[in-house]
């Protein structure tokens, strides 16, 4: 059953990702990407990480992508036309992207995973609650990254205001 669900969502994810890359209209790309995000959330549920799944939907699909959509509407750019200044770019990109995929599959297929396992088995996590388990780690072992995150967000806020306000003052002239 879980294999079936995996293939269903994997197919959706790959097709949607392909659509995001190929579709001309940026809004369609964004919508495809939303689909990828949601199917990845399903993957996380399959991997017994529901909290990450929900966070993925809330932040990626529900916030980040909305921002993308806003910016697309803000700039309302046209669709990509032609190959642009770099003629060989597209062919080479696809060629080397494929080569990278082949290499990655070769590497990962031959990889021997370490047998060492930690203590957070799915059963252990379920007993404690996924959110609680992640939170317990985050607020103790990863306390410093957590606090630094706030500084990162602060910098982002200030940066955005500076960039956006600059634009506004220009447009007033």
């Amino acid at each position, binding site marked *: 059953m879980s294999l079936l669900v995996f293939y269903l969502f994997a197919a959706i994810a790959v097709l949607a990702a392909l659509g995001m890359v190929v579709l001309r209209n940026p809004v369609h790309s964004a919508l495809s990407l939303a689909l990828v995000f949601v199917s990845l959330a399903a993957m996380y549920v399959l991997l017994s990480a529901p909290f990450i799944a929900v966070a993925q939907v809330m932040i990626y699909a529900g916030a980040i992508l909305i921002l993308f959509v806003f910016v697309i509407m803000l700039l309302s750019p046209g669709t990509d036309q032609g190959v642009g*200044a*770099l003629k060989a*770019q597209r062919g*080479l*990109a696809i060629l*080397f*992207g494929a*080569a*990278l995929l082949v*290499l*990655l599959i*070769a*590497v990962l297929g031959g990889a021997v995973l370490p047998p060492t396992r930690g203590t957070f088995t799915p059963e252990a996590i379920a007993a404690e609650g996924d959110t609680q388990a992640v939170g317990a780690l985050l607020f103790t072992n990863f306390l410093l990254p957590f606090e630094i995150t706030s500084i990162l967000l602060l910098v982002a806020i200030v940066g955005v205001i500076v960039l956006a306000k600059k634009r506004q003052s220009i447009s007033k002239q």
Partner: protein
Amino acid sequence: MINYLWLVPALPLAGAAINAIFSRKMPRWLVSVLGVGSVGLSFLVALAEFFTVLGAGAQGVFNVSIYSWIPVGNFKIDVAFLLDPLSALMLLGVTGVGFLIHVYSTGYMAEDESYGRFFTYLNLFVFSMLILVLGSNYLLMYVGWALVGLCSYLLISFWFTRPAAAAAGKKAFITTRIGDFGFGLGVILIFVTFGSLNFADVFARAPQMFQLGAPIITTITLLLFAGAVGKSAQLPLYVWLPDAMEGPTPVSALIHAATMVTAGVYMVARSHVLFSLAPFSSEVVAVIGAVTALFAATIALTQMDLKRVLAYSTISQLGYMFLGVGVAAYGAGIFHLMTHAFFKALLFLAAGSVMHAMNGVIDMRQLGGLRSKMRWTYITFFAAALAISGFPLFSGFFSKDEILAQAFESGHIILWAIGLLTAGLTAFYIFRAFFLTFHTQARWTEDEGRKTESRHSPSSVVGHPSFHPHESPASMTVPLAILAVLAVVAGFVGMPSVMGPNFLEGFFAPVFGEAAAAIPAGTEWMLIGASVAVGLIGIGVAYWFYIASPEIPVNLAAQFKGIYTLLWNKYYVDEFYSAVFVEPGRRLAMFLWQVIDVQVIDGFANGLGRAMASFSGALRGWQTGYARAYALLMLVGTVIVIGWLMLR
């Protein structure tokens, strides 16, 4: 209390940091409070640590790890402090004497425009010295070692606008670097040999791994001693110390008498396990110490510059200390180190007080008769002079006597004789300086109208100058008084066995092991008698020469003109070095500059540049300016790297 050990070096560092950044904006009193206060607090903490060690008795060895500094494979160096009786005593000395000298400096440097800079350097020096003393491994010690060298350089050339000061700083730095190079090699060799730089590891492994007199240990100890020779101004690398008197007098007192120059002694004492395994090296240490002691004392006989007399005296006394540690009397060496710190710092500070009063004049030919003008300076200088001369029951008496006794007892009769002779010379030259400065006729005239401004850089006033000497402010006299008390009484902690309990020997037991068997009382009394007699003779001769019949030294100088000129010119060592090392070095440098650098290296570099220019011209075509093209190249690179890793 041991948890607060880090405060001891941290406080002066904080003081230095704050003064370094803000001293320009701060009022002087705040600079003083920070500079003096940080060292004062540090002293209080050190005092508490000292009593912790004292209270712990035989268990008084603490290892305090602060921070894992270099963890590379099995090369693991911690910033860790070692607190044992040895370092605890050194801590007290460094922070205590340092504190007094800081206080003194507030008066002495009051007029200087670079007041904040001075305290920054001074605090930084205290911090560096504490790192040197506290470090629990050779690398940390080496860091402190290098840092004190830097501070010494900065402080000697503090008045860097004067060429002499700048040159003296350079000379000190370069000369000591020669020794430091040996020290560095020694440290590397220790790591190669023992696989660790921790004192605890090295000292535990050394006796198990090597027999007595193993060549490798001898090499290590000789290399370490090379560092000590440079830092502690022994033959043949002593030449920088007299020149270092160009620095401000508190610097001379703190760095070039009480603390930094004794680092070599401390290091040898710290490495006593290694030196005990290398009898040859110990022998070298003792011989160099004794010869230096005598050599410097003879030079001091004729010098007319008060501070230089003290400088040569310092070299001589350091020689004593090396004689002590060289004959395995480590406790005695450190004991002398401590008492010397008190009385030599006092001598320097008193000399500084004289300079303060005499408008920077330090040439004894222009002093004299200051006894009545500077009562406190006079009394304290007198106490210090008695101490250094080994006058009975003064501190120098106990420590010097112990070294001599140990030298005698260990069978180094010749070295003992040299030491004894030096003791006599010491008593003579120090009282010569004392009489010439404070007694005799004033060789200057009172000038009521001209209130002397305080200038401290040695000025060369020719002829018969006029001054209005005055006693220094309390900020200078109080440290003098405190040091004087210490110089008088400090010796009682290490009384010879015939006179009472030797507290110091028991205190050092956790470091140096139990004391050697006591010297037979008869021998002991004989040795004491000899050194006391020699000291008294020295004082007496000085009195006879300079107070009773002042024409004698003039006659003597005329009669033994050859020897006098040789001594007056300090055995022409500077000239010798200049001819043998400096001048060829300069020639070599000129050759390297004009031939190797300009033609070969520059030619190569320019050619490389030209080649690069043409090569990059070819590469420029790749820089299209299109971000996507660069990204594509990144992908291509990734594919190539992964592919290569796969196929390899």
